[in-house]
């Protein structure tokens, strides 16, 4: 038979369906390496293989892979349930540590932000108090250190009902463990503590001590360096002394 006559038979042959005499004819052509029949047969093999893929999908069991590889001397590691559980537990533990770390981080950040917010609120409150003292009628303004270069200089504002405010420059930052403490020095009796504060790195400072102040009975406003906890009475020589005038502003 000719190659042309066999042309329609290649797929049947590849499927095992060809009948005699076509089956023997094709085999004979392939045996003698007939180029046309080889080409046709290869195309038939592609078609039959593609038809084979239309079988309903089915997944082989995982043991089959291990079995195949073991049969050629490639043992595949099989971890099993205990190791899987251990891995899962480790993953869970890692996640717990990670998230607890994150939670702690968030808590610290929250604390820092709340601290910042508190500082800003205190600063705002202090500014409002300062503004009130500055603008209120009856506030006395006293300058200090004006003629003493390199010494702390500034002004003190004191109001009978709103309190006292100090604004200073050239006031060096307090040494570690120390703080500045403001005092209201009465004409009679012991100095009264009027709050702790720190100066900034540029030597400026502002401190407000709200509350009523008996201006007429006050001799001066002073500032001393104290331990950071403060003290009921001045323990050092004052850095600032601002004597109040006899008459109000």
């Amino acid at each position, binding site marked *: 038979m000719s190659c042309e006559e066999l042309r329609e038979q290649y797929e*049947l042959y590849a499927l095992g369906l060809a009948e005699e005499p076509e089956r023997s004819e094709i085999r004979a052509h*392939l045996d003698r390496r007939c180029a046309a029949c080889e080409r046709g047969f290869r195309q038939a093999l592609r078609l039959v293989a593609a038809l*084979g893929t239309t079988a309903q999908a089915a997944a082989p069991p995982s043991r089959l892979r291990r079995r195949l590889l073991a049969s050629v001397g490639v043992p595949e590691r099989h971890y099993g349930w205990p190791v899987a559980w251990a891995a899962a537990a480790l993953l869970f533990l890692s996640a717990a540590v990670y998230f607890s770390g994150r939670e702690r981080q968030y808590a610290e950040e929250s604390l820092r932000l709340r601290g910042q917010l508190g500082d800003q609120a205190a600063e705002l409150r202090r500014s409002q108090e300062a503004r009130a003292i500055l603008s209120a009628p009856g506030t006395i303004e006293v300058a200090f250190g004006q003629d003493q270069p390199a010494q702390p200089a500034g002004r003190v504002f004191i109001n009978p009902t709103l309190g006292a405010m100090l604004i200073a420059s050239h006031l060096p930052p307090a040494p570690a463990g120390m703080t500045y403490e403001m005092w209201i020095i009465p004409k009679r009796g012991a100095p009264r503590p009027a709050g702790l504060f720190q100066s900034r790195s540029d030597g400026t400072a502002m401190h407000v001590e709200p509350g009523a102040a008996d201006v007429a009975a006050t001799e001066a406003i002073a500032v001393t360096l104290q331990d950071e906890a403060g003290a009921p009475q001045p323990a050092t020589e004052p850095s600032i002394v601002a004597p109040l005038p006899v008459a109000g502003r």
Partner: protein
Amino acid sequence: MKRRDGRALAQLYDRHGRPVYALILRMVRNHEVAEDLVQETFLRFWNRAQIFDEQKCALGPWLLAVARNRALDYVRSQEGPGGGLAVCEEAEDPRLCAALEAGVSFAEQAQRAKQALARLPEDQRQAIELACFDCLSPTAMAAKLGKPPGTLQTWLRSALTEMRRAMEAGVAE
């Protein structure tokens, strides 16, 4: 793979194990037998790996041809001689191994075949499936369907001609 690297065999199995298993299982309808025959299919390649030229031979189609032969052999052994199809030994000859069309992957060919099969008339599709997966000769199909053998022959030829055209044209829609 020519150096018989076990990792290469693992990769080959990962790529083609699923369709090979599906084809064999569909033909033998027995999970344990299918596993044995899948292993046999891949070992057949393993033992001949050195003579394959992967530039000229598409391994996917070759493995499916071997798989089909293994399954067909098993079915024939169960049914006894005379009634089943013939094993196509040439399909396993590396010299005749089918290369893929240029620029067309086997996955694309499989998709073409699936679409072309779906376009066939119901009787032709049934004839193809009985031949491919149930290992029935036209005479056995005729007996099963109560049709003359000549009719089944005609359906099969028509179906294969249409499939061939669709595969060659690359248009299955």
